[in-house]
């Protein structure tokens, strides 16, 4: 066994048990009156931190959801706007086609009317020409008859007229 000097910290004397008792008493007092409140406070703090974290997480989720909704809302609005544009374009095309069709129909109607008018004018011209020819033929025939009909021929014509008389019809 090594020899320890009397003034060394490791030397055993009466203060050592007192120190032990004091230590133990301190320990007891600490564990009875100090550690529990500290422990509770630490627990409470931990709980608070946990709650705060949880709330933060919930808020983050809410924000995410809101962003997601906003995104889908924007997408919806864009889709609707595109649909409106598509419809407007389609309507415009239909209107253009309708106008083209109307234009063609009007053109055809004009051509038909013009043809009908031409035909009518031609008919009128032909009719007029026919009348003029007939009048000329009549006039020429009258002239010839006036010169060629002598008394003998006149008598023959009168006899022919009398031959047509028939009261039985």
């Amino acid at each position, binding site marked *: 066994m090594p020899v320890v000097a009397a003034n060394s910290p490791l030397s055993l004397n009466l203060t050592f048990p007192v120190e032990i008792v004091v230590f133990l008493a301190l320990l007891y007092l600490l564990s009875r009156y100090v550690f529990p409140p500290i422990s509770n406070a630490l627990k409470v703090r931990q709980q608070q931190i946990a709650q705060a974290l949880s709330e933060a997480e919930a808020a983050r989720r809410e924000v995410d959801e809101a962003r997601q909704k906003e995104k889908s809302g924007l997408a919806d609005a864009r889709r609707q706007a595109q649909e409106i544009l598509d419809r407007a374009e389609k309507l415009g095309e239909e209107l253009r086609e309708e106008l083209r069709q109307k234009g063609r129909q009007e053109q055809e109607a004009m051509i038909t009317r013009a043809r009908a008018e031409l035909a009518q004018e031609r008919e009128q011209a032909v009719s007029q020409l026919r009348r003029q020819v007939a009048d000329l033929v009549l006039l020429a025939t009258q002239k010839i*008859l006036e010169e060629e009909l002598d008394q003998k021929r006149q008598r023959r014509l009168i006899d022919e007229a009398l031959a047509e008389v028939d009261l039985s019809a």
Partner: protein
Amino acid sequence: MPAIEEGYHQLVDKREGRVLAQLTTAVAVGAAEQKQLAEQLSERLHLDVRFEAKVDPSLLGGAVVRVGDHVFDASLTTRLQQLRQDLLTQVPSR
């Protein structure tokens, strides 16, 4: 007056079984020819005919015979008008 005279003649003709025949020609017909024509007409109609002759140069030729209410138009003017009508209604071949 002419109408009364006409009416009187008609009554007399009816009573005596006669009929009035009016012949309108383009040229004048002599008295002898008129008599011949009257006989021709009487023979054709088997009736006693009171004959009247009129002249209308616009007929050109032929005659218009009126017997009672019947009119027979065999004048050249009418035939020429018919010819004119035929020319107008004839459809030309294309």
